[in-house]
């Protein structure tokens, strides 16, 4: 958290900026007119029901989908703000391999299921030029420990892992290159409640220790409350309400946000 605080005060410039971002498929508009800024160390949650445009927005922000309108700018490691549409394919791949992480809801999409856990983590390091086997293996082991996976399982393939372990391995694979921004799409979806709590606690600690910026798509308001500083509520492809997470959840203004908040079943 100390690093996190330093990151907030030292770099008073946004890491990512979305301007009038939108995507339509013919007559269907999946997402329209989204503008916001994300600062280093900030965690932003995007909440809303299925079909509200959350995942489309995440794909636009992470340059996996080309926008129909507007643009996404990202501050590269050299400090220059670049329009993601203007950078070349090689640079975009470099971003994905080093500066960004992407945690999929289904770990099978983010992992290589047939190779060992150690190789899954090590692969990202090799992609950025690491070539010393011993160092790669040591780093992979220490990351498995950090995400609470028994190092004795390093040579097993993730298809032999439980759902919660796979998700933790996917997180280790993403964080090993010290990215500055991590995208997460329903990171706790499909997991048992007890497994979810452990994963959330782990993510929360990692994000604050590493001073990461993150954009987390979730339909679960409890996840948003626990992980994020700010929240954007989406409905019908638009952002209908945005602000400090506890403010939006404790004092929701828009009818749809009030409905979302009041629909949570008390435990």
């Amino acid at each position: 958290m100390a690093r996190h605080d330093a990151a907030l005060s030292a770099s008073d410039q946004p890491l990512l900026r979305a301007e009038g971002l939108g995507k339509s498929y013919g007559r269907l508009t999946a997402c329209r007119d989204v503008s916001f800024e994300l600062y280093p160390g900030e965690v932003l949650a995007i909440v809303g029901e299925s079909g509200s445009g959350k995942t489309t927005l995440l794909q636009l922000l992470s340059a996996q989908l080309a926008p129909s309108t507007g643009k996404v700018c990202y501050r590269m490691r050299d400090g220059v703000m670049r329009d993601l549409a203007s950078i070349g394919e090689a640079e975009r791949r470099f971003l994905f391999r080093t500066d960004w992480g992407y945690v999929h809801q289904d770990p099978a999409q983010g992992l290589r299921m047939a190779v060992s856990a150690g190789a899954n983590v090590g692969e990202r390091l090799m992609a950025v030029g690491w070539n010393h086997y011993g160092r790669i293996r040591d780093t992979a082991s220490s990351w498995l420990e950090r995400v609470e996976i028994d190092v004795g399982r390093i040579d097993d393939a993730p298809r032999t892992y439980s759902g919660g372990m796979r998700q933790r391995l996917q997180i280790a694979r993403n964080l090993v290159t010290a990215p500055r921004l991590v995208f997460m799409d329903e990171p706790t979806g499909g997991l048992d409640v007890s497994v979810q709590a452990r994963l959330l606690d782990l993510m929360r600690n990692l994000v604050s220790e590493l001073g990461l910026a993150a954009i987390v798509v979730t339909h679960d308001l409890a996840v948003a409350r626990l992980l994020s500083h700010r929240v954007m509520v989406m409905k019908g492809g638009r952002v209908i309400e945005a602000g400090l997470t506890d403010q939006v959840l404790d004092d929701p203004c828009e009818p749809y946000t009030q409905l979302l908040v009041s629909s949570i079943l008390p435990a």
Partner: protein
Amino acid sequence: MSAMIEISQAEKTFIMHLQGGIRLPVVSGVSFHVDPGECVVLAGPSGAGKSSILKMIFGNYRCDGGRIGIRHQGEQIDLATAEPRQILSVRRSTIGYVSQFLRAVPRVATLDVVAEPLIANGTGRAEARERSGRLLRRLNIPQRLWGLPPSTFSGGEQQRVNIARGFISDLPILLLDEPTASLDAANRAVVVELIGEKKRAGVAMVAIVHDDEIRHQIADRIVDVTSFAAAA
């Protein structure tokens, strides 16, 4: 000396869209200030808007009008219009809040729940834990419980953990929402003592307390919230 908190003409109305858009005016014309080393107690019956005012000062409830001036890192910042990242910065280094109920992360040990605000401000983990332990001991939480998450504790124990978490930091403003509500006499006395220490350290406090005796012991000034009742 300049005030730590300076509120003028602040107002809050809830609009309940799920109940046909009913307007619930909570408070209006809220104006008062708090100096360093002073404890202002908000008085008034239940439902008068005391907790809402506290939440507005913490930036947890939005403010529909007026100004909530907070002295933050040597400058005054208006929380009614501040950006989310400014509010987060104010919460990290200026305003602490002891809510009525503890909202803790599952799985985190009590000692760390209490130490967390210090660590967030750059104190080393070992020192933060040591101070956490000292405070928990003062508040009579037995050491054998420190390694457990507070969700397993009784109501009174949880509240004392919450108080420890609120009092551990050296923040210049502290908001207290019924800090003694479910405590026994011995622990109430500890809280009164802690509040006294904060005053001597120059901390500005706003508190809600229903117990007349406690109020008498801690209040330097009383602000009657009924005068801010919003006209329906």
